[in-house]
């Protein structure tokens, strides 16, 4: 008797938990559905005469590589803001780990949920290719952002910066700061698996070989698991192993901070230059004392905004054009499927407080 009672109680508990947990989230995803489906048909008929300026409540899903890290939290802000500004039903969903297989499952579920457009930052282009084809077959407009998917799977590929330009920026800035082009340097990277980081590093090394042939890379790129703590430890090891190290290039946002911390601790602020991709809010304290010499990145919230904007344009039958002025983002450049948001922002001690993310 007692057992039955216990079982009933648990079942009730689980059910009530589920209902209460999913209730707040379900209305926003359910309610706008009606206008979407109601307006879609007339919209397509009317399309030629009114180019949908007043905006339809399109359902757009934006999927980052993972949720819960500052970078993708910032882009979430931008994506949701775009939804608000343009009257779209934007949902920002992604796995809690940067795992391509999780993304595949979530996209399958999104297809079943019924969305109009998907902007995805794939953890792996190859793994997502079959499911993106499935999405396309289901009539969903597919774009990539932040990290490219296979070009044939997407309508547009939203890039932060010109990859080549960004790769060269590292070396140009380092040479400029060092005032010479024959220094010894090391490369810290987020992970050996990350395609975009590898792309920048490879392109940069290629560029350095031609433009600055006297630079000496002391060791292979050092992986840090996207962790500031590990970047700090690896930098201490690098400093111990190569006492004449002069420059550290940090790829992936936590790495320059970890490197700067190590440099500060070893009192090498004047002899070691640290530059790399980092977010301004996190780098203020390191820029202030000079342990970090220069940080650069793009604004991830603008990137999220641009992704949603581009999806809406495609849904309403318009094309993006080179030099187009996007509200809240700025001038974009477009070359075929490749959309580039703009040049990277560079921050120093002087201007870092002008940014907020």
């Amino acid at each position, binding site marked *: 008797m007692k057992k039955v009672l*216990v*079982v009933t109680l648990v079942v009730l508990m689980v059910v009530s938990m589920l209902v209460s*947990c999913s209730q707040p*989230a379900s209305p926003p995803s359910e309610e706008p559905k009606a206008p979407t489906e109601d307006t879609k048909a007339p919209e397509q008929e009317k399309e030629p005469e009114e180019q949908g300026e007043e905006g339809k409540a399109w359902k757009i899903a934006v999927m980052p590589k993972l949720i819960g890290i500052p970078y993708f939290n910032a882009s979430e802000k931008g994506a949701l803001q775009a939804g608000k500004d343009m009257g779209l039903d934007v949902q920002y969903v992604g796995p809690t780990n940067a795992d391509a297989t999780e993304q595949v499952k979530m996209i399958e579920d999104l297809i079943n*949920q019924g969305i109009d457009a998907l902007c995805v930052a794939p953890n*792996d282009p190859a793994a997502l290719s079959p499911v993106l084809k499935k999405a396309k077959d289901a009539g969903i407009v597919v774009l990539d952002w932040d990290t490219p998917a296979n070009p044939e799977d997407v309508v547009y590929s939203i890039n932060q910066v010109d990859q080549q330009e960004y790769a060269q920026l590292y070396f140009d800035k380092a040479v400029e700061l060092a005032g010479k082009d024959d220094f010894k340097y090391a490369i810290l990277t987020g992970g050996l698996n990350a395609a975009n980081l590898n792309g920048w590093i490879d392109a940069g090394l290629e560029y350095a070989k031609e433009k600055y042939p006297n630079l000496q890379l002391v060791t292979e790129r050092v992986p840090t698991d996207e962790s500031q703590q590990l970047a700090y430890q690896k930098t201490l090891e690098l400093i111990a192993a190569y006492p004449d190290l002069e420059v550290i290039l940090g790829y992936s946002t936590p790495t320059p901070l970890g490197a700067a911390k190590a440099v500060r601790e070893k009192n090498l602020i004047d002899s070691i230059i640290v530059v790399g991709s980092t977010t301004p809010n996190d780098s203020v304290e390191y820029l202030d004392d000079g342990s970090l010499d220069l940080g650069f990145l793009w604004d991830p919230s603008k990137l999220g905004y641009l992704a949603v904007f581009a999806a809406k344009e495609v849904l309403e039958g318009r094309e993006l054009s080179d030099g187009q002025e996007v509200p809240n983002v700025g001038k974009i450049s477009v070359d075929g499927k490749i959309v580039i948001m703009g040049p990277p922002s560079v921050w120093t001690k002087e201007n870092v407080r002008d940014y907020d993310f």
Partner: protein
Amino acid sequence: MVEKLIHNIQRNLQLYLLLAILLVLFIVMSVLSPSKFFTPNNISSMMFQMAELGVLSIGMSIVILTGGINLALSHSSMLAAILGTLVMQAMVAAGLNPLLTILVGSVVIIATSLILGAVNGFFIAHVGVLPMLVTLGTRSVFEGIGLNITKGSAISGYPAEFDFIGNGVFMGIPFPFLIYIIVIIVSILLIQRTSWGISVYMIGGNIKATELSGINTKKVLMGVYMMCGILCGIAGIIMASRYSSARTDYGSTYVMQAVTATVLGGADINGGEGTIIGTVIGVAILQVISSGLNILGVNRNLVDIIIGAILIAVLSIRFFTKFERRIKKSENPV
């Protein structure tokens, strides 16, 4: 006799409880999003998604039955799949028959993962290192080898027919799900219907006593980790086909999900207790929650919280029902 009957009911009660939870969750999800959850499309994609985690979870379950754990689960799968992919790439380039290519590739994948399983088994059974430490080590080793071969990116290049294994539908049922069903049946037969299976449970209960009762525990443990290896290989084939590529970190989140499904399914993490069918229901519960909440558009962090909460609720229930049984026993010592 009566004892046995009570025990049977007790054991089945756990299963009924799980089935009830699964059913309730299914109904709740169907009610919350009627036009999207309870649809042929969604049911079919849930079947597709369940297969790989399901096969890996069964592998994890048999290891947990002996009181062990296999943290190298997904990395064994993927290292084997990477080697198989290389072989298939070469055979495609040589223009060999596609079906032969797939057959040879699959055999390579299963053979490799069998060997990887045997490596785990050797250090655990013969050297006597704790399973958690061994597999933590081999996890890094397998990942490192995989990274060295692939340089971190995904590799692919299969015959077009290979797609069918992970994405095909056979007689209306997703093909990977059919593979999963075969794996379930074979595993149940092996673990719950053979004397070898009984010795697996005995090792989990008390390895010293099992050894003293004349069972070659080393051999049994080797067998367990090799069987887990084969299952990793099968999951590796399904994943390589479903994602039409192989990469070291595919499915790295499955390790903890497999542990969750196993424990949810009624297994004791210390070994000696648990059923394959319990794990299968555990996997199904995770799938229904995951798909259902994704369709509702619930934040993924919240999904993790809900899965964790359900796990804790089920474990508490189990603890209290066991507790009650223990008290009753001590009340009537004879």
